[in-house]
């Protein structure tokens, strides 16, 4: 605002009128605004941050001393603060534009200005008030809302007015208030995070008028957290908190950590003493278990670590959580995961699959080397004269006997694919055998995965299996261990398979009561990978899941009915939602046939998979139609043969091995089949079994290790294989594979077989799963992507038991 003065009268009247007129106009525009007693700075109930910014200039209404508030647009000042008296020049004025009249500019003498309430200061004050209210609010939900809102205001100020006075102070107060509020609400982890942030900003923070410091708050929160974990005997997490706080803030700075360390030490000391007693009593295995409990509680107890090392030294033991017990060992089992797992521990084979090659699997012999001539019509097997402990000693003669035995039609071990290939076997010297083949074969060594036997008996592997009720034991055989080596003397396989607690294995792994999970449920892989104390690794080869017909049910012999089953199961949905729980795991996908599709594009493992074959979509209407077609076919045939016709669609029994993946999948697909009129009942197989030995099932859910389709296809699909389809087209296709002389031909023929299986629905293909295992970081030597869990068992070592984050 400006005050206009007239200067003299010696001007013409017109000019005067003009000047006067002009002045009057100017006066109209620029006169001092009418005093407003109370120019309310904010509209009621609308937060300041949501309003258009404004400042408030407070002046005195002379001649009284009443304050007048003038709401104006934000002042254009170099520094947004009230200047000091010394800074104000006499007679200087503050220019402003009123909030309601932004077009006109006014002037106010600085001497008349009492104070200026800048916008950001108002916001800060409002925020502060809100924080205080939130802190005092009893209702946790309301308190949270208020504090959340206050947080938003702080964010606003930081983004737009970072230089606001006392912003940091207010913010610290906010953190304090928030931490307290969260603690009151029982949200301890969040409270801890907030309190820690406050501590970082101001380790000595103490809110005005309070004796409580940020350290006190931290201690209270930590105390409650640790108490909760200790009550649940989750000492690992309790340790994590204590150690982290010590590391972050200094040992014994947080009072509650001191208290808890003492308490845990007392508990751990009891375990330590019990461990010592057991060792002295010669019960080393029990001592092992108790020492784990000690390590789980507090390994830093006096003498604890030394005791752990002593126990590990005397009796290295590993506990593996498994979904299925192994009743026997078979490294070549096509369908039994548990048997494959322990197979290589119990017996070694002449040739073993050790990993992935560039075109197929990679094979090696534990007892020597195998060479194939360029034309692939001869193999030369050279046996070592001395093998590592745990690997049987064999001679060339032993090897020749094995080869001849498996090629002999009169032998109980008769293996037709090898018999048809082998022409002659010559022992050229004690350690060398030459095998002549009838025709070239692309991968003859894959056929030689026979158990190693000597002239006297089957040679044992490094471990022996003791089947017990609650858990199996794999104990190292005598003479295998070398002094000083720390490979596991015992492997305890503990079955953890409780439908009521599907994550029990993960809990046990985190608690340290087991060291390894043999098979992680696919839906848990992602979350487990986030735990830095645990290593999650994929196996080298995926497993293909499918339903196979195993009974003489007439409907299952009709291709139309089998196709009906495929159309009626929503495989994609079951896999994505139930098994993977919405996660994407490479290598887990629906398949159209019995062969693996691999984990990535151009995966060599997929040489048998014809990716031009499109998946049969989920189409329950079509499934229902095809089921009726099958019924009509059977009715017609019965009439022609004058036999009794089926009354309707069959009731099927689906058998499955009992673990989470199969249980869930079978439950869901049963529901889906019911929708098209195919009633199914589920039959859980006995633990450790994967075949329907009692012939009670019509369909069997199997998990097939089709790791080398070239040789495994016949094991699954031939007339003598797992799937008794007796299909001449499948049989013919398998015979064609056996006679392929190069990889291109073999791959093409396998894809032909895939197509035939697809057309005939020889099996009901479900999905491929890339299984993973998990282990605690304290365990070393497990290896990356092994074929089976115990592939590198001689390298396994427990290094230390410290809980790390």
């Amino acid at each position: 605002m400006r005050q206009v003065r007239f200067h003299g009268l010696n001007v013409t009247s017109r000019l005067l009128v003009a000047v006067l007129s002009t002045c009057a106009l100017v006066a109209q525009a620029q006169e001092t605004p009418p005093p407003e007693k109370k120019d309310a700075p904010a509209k009621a109930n609308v937060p300041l941050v949501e309003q258009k910014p404004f400042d408030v200039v407070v002046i005195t209404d002379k001649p009284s001393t009443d304050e007048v508030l003038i709401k104006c647009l934000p002042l254009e000042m170099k520094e947004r603060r009230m200047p000091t008296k010394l800074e104000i020049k006499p007679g200087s004025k503050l220019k402003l534009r009123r909030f309601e009249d932004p077009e006109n500019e006014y002037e106010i003498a600085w001497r008349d200005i009492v104070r200026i309430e800048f916008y950001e200061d108002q916001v800060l004050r409002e925020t502060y008030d809100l924080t205080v209210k939130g802190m005092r609010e009893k209702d946790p939900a309301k308190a949270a809302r208020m504090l959340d809102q206050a947080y938003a205001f702080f964010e606003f100020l930081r983004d737009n007015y970072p230089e606001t006075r006392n912003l940091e102070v207010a913010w610290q107060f906010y953190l304090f208030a928030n931490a307290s509020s969260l603690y009151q609400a029982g949200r301890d982890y969040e409270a801890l995070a907030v309190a820690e942030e406050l501590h970082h900003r101001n380790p000595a923070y103490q809110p005005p008028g309070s004796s409580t410091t940020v350290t006190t708050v931290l201690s209270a929160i930590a105390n409650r957290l640790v108490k909760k974990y200790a009550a649940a005997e989750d000492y690992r997490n309790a340790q994590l908190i204590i150690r982290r706080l010590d590391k972050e803030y200094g040992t014994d700075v947080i009072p509650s950590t001191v208290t808890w360390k003492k308490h845990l030490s007392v508990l751990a000391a009891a375990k330590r003493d019990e461990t010592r007693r057991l060792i002295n009593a010669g019960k080393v295995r029990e001592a092992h278990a108790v020492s784990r409990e000690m390590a789980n509680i507090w390994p830093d107890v006096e003498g604890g670590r030394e005791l752990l090392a002593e126990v590990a030294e005397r009796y290295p033991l590993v506990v593996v959580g498994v979904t299925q017990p192994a009743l026997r060992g078979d490294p070549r089992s096509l369908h039994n995961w548990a048997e494959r797992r322990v197979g290589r521990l119990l017996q070694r084979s002449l040739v073993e699959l050790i990993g992935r090659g560039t075109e197929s699997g990679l094979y090696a012999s534990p007892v020597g080397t195998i060479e194939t001539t360029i034309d692939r019509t001869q193999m030369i097997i050279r046996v070592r004269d001395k093998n590592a402990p745990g690997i049987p000693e064999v001679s060339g003669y032993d090897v020749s006997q094995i080869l001849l035995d498996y090629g002999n039609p009169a032998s109980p071990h008769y293996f037709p694919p090898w018999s048809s290939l082998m022409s002659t076997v010559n022992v050229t010297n004690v350690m060398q055998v030459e095998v002549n083949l009838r025709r070239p074969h692309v991968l003859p060594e894959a056929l030689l995965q026979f158990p190693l036997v000597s002239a006297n008996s089957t040679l044992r592997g490094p471990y022996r299996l003791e089947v017990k009720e609650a858990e199996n034991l794999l104990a190292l055989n005598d003479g295998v261990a070398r002094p000083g080596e720390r490979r596991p003397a015992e492997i305890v396989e503990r079955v953890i398979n409780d439908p009521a607690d599907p994550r029990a294995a993960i809990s046990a792994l985190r608690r340290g009561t087991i060291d390894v999970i043999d098979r992680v449920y696919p839906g848990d892989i992602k979350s487990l990978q986030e735990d830095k104390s645990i290593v999650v690794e994929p196996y080298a080869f995926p497993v293909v899941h499918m339903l196979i017909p195993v009974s003489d049910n007439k409907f299952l012999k009709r291709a139309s009915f089998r196709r009906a089953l495929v159309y009626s199961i929503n495989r994609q949905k079951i896999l994505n939602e139930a098994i993977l729980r919405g996660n994407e795991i490479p290598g887990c996908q629906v398949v159209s046939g019995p062969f693996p599709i691999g984990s990535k594009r151009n995966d060599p493992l997929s040489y048998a998979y014809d990716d031009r074959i499109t998946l049969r979509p989920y189409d329950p209407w079509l499934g229902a139609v095809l089921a009726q077609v099958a019924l009509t076919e059977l009715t017609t045939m019965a009439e022609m043969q004058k036999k009794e016709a089926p009354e309707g669609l069959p009731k099927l029994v689906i058998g499955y091995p009992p673990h989470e993946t199969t249980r869930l999948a079978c439950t869901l697909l049963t529901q889906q089949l019911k929708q098209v009129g195919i009633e199914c009942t589920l039959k859980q197989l006995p633990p450790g079994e994967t075949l329907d030995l009692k012939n009670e099932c019509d369909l069997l859910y199997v998990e097939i290790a089709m790791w080398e389709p070239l040789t495994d296809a016949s094991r699954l699909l031939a007339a003598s294989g797992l799937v008794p389809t007796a299909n001449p087209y499948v049989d013919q296709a398998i015979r064609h594979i056996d006679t392929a002389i190069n990889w291109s031909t073999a791959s093409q023929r396998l894809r032909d077989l895939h197509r035939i299986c697809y057309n005939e629905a020889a099996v009901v293909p479900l999905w491929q799963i890339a299984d993973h295992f998990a282990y605690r970081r304290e365990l070393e030597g497990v290896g990356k992507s092994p074929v089976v869990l115990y592939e590198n068992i001689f390298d396994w070592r427990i290094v230390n038991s410290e809980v790390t984050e």
Partner: protein
Amino acid sequence: MNTSRVAPLLFLVAAIEVLSARPCAAAEEIWEYSPYRIEVWLALDDHPVLTERLESTLVRQIKQQAHISVGAPWSLAITRPVDAIRYEMLRDMERVGVDDIDAVAPEILEKDKLFLVSIDYSTRGFHVAVRELDGRTRTWSPTFASYAQSNVLVPLTVFDNMRKAFRAVTRIESSRNKDATVRPRGGGLVLSENSPAYVGVGDTLLPIIRRNDRYGKPLNNGIKTAPWTFLQATTRDGAVLICDLHSGMRGVLSGRTSSRTQKLALRVRPVHEHTRLICETRPTPDEPSRPLPGYDIYAKDIETEKLELIGRTDWRGVIDIPQLPKVLGLIYVKNGAQPLARLPMVPGLETELTAQVADDDIRLQAEGYISGIQSRMLDIVASRALVNTRVDDRIEANALVGAQYWVEQFRSIDTRTDLNALLSQQRSQLINRNPDRRTATKIDQLYGDTQNMIAEYIDDQMADELSAKVKAAKRNPRPASPPEPEPAPPATPTPTPTPTEESTAAPAA
């Protein structure tokens, strides 16, 4: 006419008539009413236990036993063989051949039967082995061997094995396509069905044809067993038996019977647990025989005509066929749905037999391809019918957007052109394998029939017709139509339940 000259002529004529007529009737009488002339060569090993006294006891007791058990049909003469034969008999009965016997005692081959009996002694007891040679057909029976624990039991053991080895002989009197008439040797002397010489209803006979020279000796390779041919006696007509003829070949027993051609049939029984059947391709000038793995082998009961799968040939083309309940059965060799051979067989009679059949591999592969196409066609026809119904329903409900959606879905289903292209591609792959003319014809027929089926059931115009229907419905909308629903998603009868905690609980078995 001078009667003195006529009478001798008449007498001569009459005499000639009598003399020429007598051999037929006489021959029948000999065949039917004379016993089997059986020579038994008994060879005892050089062992103190096998004394001359034991030998003479054996001879006596074997004859006694024959007299008691068999009676008139057998006329036995028991002698020692010459040393060379004796040695072979004791070493390995099966090394003694017809030529060996012909060389030392050709007259023996004129007899009905020759039994080779060898006896040696070991810690297990008296080992008795017996083998029979039929004189007319010059064929050997299998060797029957067993142990007798004491010398008292030796004669019985010998005789028991002789009974087992003995193959009754019949003469084929006549034969037509499907039946034949046979006359058993010594049939008039057989009094009991238990006699080894008895041939009755239900017995299986193996036909053998013998061609002689003018001296009555068999021609070189003149004795042949009719391959894959058996007779089964069904009814008795006096002294003869009417038999059904089962043969895998045509015209095996046809042809005139002359004085130089004898058609005989031996009664046979299975003696081994199984017969190994080897299936292989017929050799050609360019290619030798190859085994035929994966061929299905069925056995059919001749009476009930019930067909039973025995198994599948292995990689060597081999399958072991066990004895059948009714001795004779029809063995079918099939490849997929195609029967390739029908072979009458007595499993267990021979240790091993070879069947040469056509290589049917390419045809089976074609059949497999066609089966796949047909399955696909069924799915396509069903899918099209379902979608067609959905389109009609939506037109009826005036939900034309939904109808249009389903028309688009219809277009995404495989068409006739797609199937024909696949058919053509697969056919080319097969033709590139150069099948023989017969197989190529079969393949063409298979593919032709399938193409016709495709043309009949899959109409490529249907999509356009559906589209036209929808357009017509749009032009003439139904009055007072309800609000148009959203295009329907792929139909599911009810939503698939999303897994919840409850649904993961273990279901009741």
